[in-house]
């Protein structure tokens, strides 16, 4: 093509050709090598391990692997606990997000920072902290044990608690952002119509921020599903009770690598499904 074609390509009839051409030139022209090469390297670095997982997958024995009792047990436990942790995060996290976004109180900035701490805290540390708080000799756990006979560590409930501890901040941050972006005057309008602040929240704000809550919930669920460090520290690794998928993968890798790969594939599939579910929300806003 001659350079003269260019303006025509931009304004000419809408065929696939000009678009493809533009994409092609964008890749070759004007991109400096010092950026292009590391960029491509990064892409390979991120994708190759996943590719290796697919290449080395024991496709023939996969059906057997996935239907084995241990895998099924771990998968079911993972789904149940991640969903429960997400539910806990929703019930407690949405009100917290509302408090952070809609009320003024001293030290709000600090509270907000503390809420986000589990996002950056190594999950193992979170697990240790949970043990110290809710363990049988923990600050609160002691009373739970002696007063109500409730023991949380090394139980399925403990798994849910560990996952919620790690996943809830994702939901809180996501919902708080949505709340801040939502117009608070809708709540005022509801108030002038006779709605209490809670009714206004329930009947107006909640439906308005539902997409943000859904996105936050998916994010929290995915985080809970992949949770490893806090879970193994606080809840241990008992098959059928606290052994979730990531734990099962780690354990299987020691004595049955094929099973580990099969389990990993399942988690990869779930991750891709989550990404697809959030596609509209994230992948389109950046482009």
């Amino acid at each position, binding site marked *: 093509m001659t350079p003269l074609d260019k303006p025509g390509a931009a304004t000419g009839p809408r065929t696939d050709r000009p678009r493809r051409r533009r994409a092609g030139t964008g890749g070759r022209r004007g991109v400096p090598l010092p950026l292009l090469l590391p960029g491509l390297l990064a892409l390979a670095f991120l994708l190759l391990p996943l590719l290796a997982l697919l290449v080395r997958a024991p496709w023939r024995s996969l059906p057997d692997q996935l239907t084995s009792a241990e895998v099924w047990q771990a998968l079911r436990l993972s789904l149940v606990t991640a969903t429960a942790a997400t539910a806990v995060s929703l019930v407690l996290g949405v009100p917290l997000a509302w408090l952070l976004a809609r009320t003024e109180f001293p030290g709000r900035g600090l509270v907000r920072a503390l809420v986000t701490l589990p996002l950056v805290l190594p999950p193992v540390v979170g697990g240790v902290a949970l043990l110290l708080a809710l363990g049988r000799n923990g600050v609160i756990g002691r009373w739970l044990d002696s007063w109500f006979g409730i023991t949380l560590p090394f139980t399925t409930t403990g798994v849910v608690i560990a996952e919620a501890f790690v996943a809830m901040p994702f939901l809180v941050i996501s919902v708080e952002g949505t709340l801040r972006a939502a*117009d608070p*005057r*809708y709540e*005022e*309008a*509801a*108030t*002038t*119509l*006779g*709605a*209490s*602040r809670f*009714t206004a929240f329930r*009947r*107006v704000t909640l*439906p*308005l921020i539902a997409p943000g809550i859904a996105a936050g919930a998916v994010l929290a669920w995915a985080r809970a599903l992949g949770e490893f460090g806090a879970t193994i520290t606080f809840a241990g690794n008992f098959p059928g009770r606290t052994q979730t998928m990531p734990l099962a993968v780690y354990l299987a890798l020691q004595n049955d690598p094929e099973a580990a790969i099969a389990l990993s594939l399942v988690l990869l599939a779930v991750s891709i499904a989550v990404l697809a579910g959030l596609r509209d929300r994230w992948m389109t806003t950046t482009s």
Partner: protein
Amino acid sequence: MTTPHPTSPNDTDRHPQRRPQPQPQSEPPGLDAHLIVDRGAFHLDVTLTAGPGDVLALLGPNGAGKTTALRALAGLTPLTAGHLHLDGTPLTDTPPESRPVGVVFQDYLLFPHLSALDNVAFGPRCRGAGRAEARSRAAAWLDRMGLADHAGARPRSLSGGQAQRVALARALATGPRLLLLDEPLAALDARTRLEVRAQLRRHLAAFEAVSVLVTHDPLDAMVLADRLVVIEDGRVVQEGTPADIARHPRTDYIAQLVGLNLYRGQAAGHTVRLDAGPAITTTEVLSGPVFVAFPPSAVTLFRDRPSGASARNLWRCEVAGLETHGDQIRADLTGELPLAADLTTVAAAELDLHPGAPVWATVKATQTHAYPA
């Protein structure tokens, strides 16, 4: 200037109510408010009173405190001091959800996830009506607004005028004793505005309790309200009927709104010596502090000093700016006496007016109007 003073048949019904007979024991019905709101540098101190059926317009430039006053009436902004009584009931410390007050917000704030019907039914539901009853009441209000066909529509599929009527229906469906409208026509385009203004006027006339609307548009204020309260810098600077305010503006802002040149000075007989410079000869005989007003159309411009003309009401000025005003040209003049003058396009061309051009301006004494300050 022509004054679009309310002259609909409803006015005759409304005016007798405007000054309610003082009741022996209790306070008169209607609105009695003294709103004081302190917000850092901004201080609002406004007294508002109105009887049932009154439509009060708060008029003022941006940032004058109109919306703050409205929010204080609704309870959305707490009072620092003062009081709010409605039909004799103190509401000063009543939370917004318990006040018998309806609000039409500037951009309506219709709940986007609810149909028009459910938007209107929201208020009755919150105030204790059952679902079916709330919906039937809402349907009746939509019908009254001519929107029965749009009951199921989501707000985003409504036109601006329709959304405005849904917002009005939503505010009225709770049976408020005080209706507040924040810039009710500001979100509409010019054509819709004309139509909606007429409808809104009808609905406000039919509303039996107090209406307070906030606007920066003098035409909206004059068409919709029977009484104007002009607010500048958080204080009431003038209050009265639209006709009264249009004839006797007391601040530059109001004078500009109603299209008058306004000056303040000391009168002695037929002469008013202005605080800032020259004197104006008037027909009225007054003494002491006065205002002098005259419309821009009363000003005649000359390129050269008119020969033979008396020196009365003749000032040397300079063109500061020109703008088209309908089929007229409005010249903004500075110099001995800053003033606005209207002239035809032809006259402007003959005078070769352009920013910076020197001109002589005269006004006949008979076209000025002086009144005590």
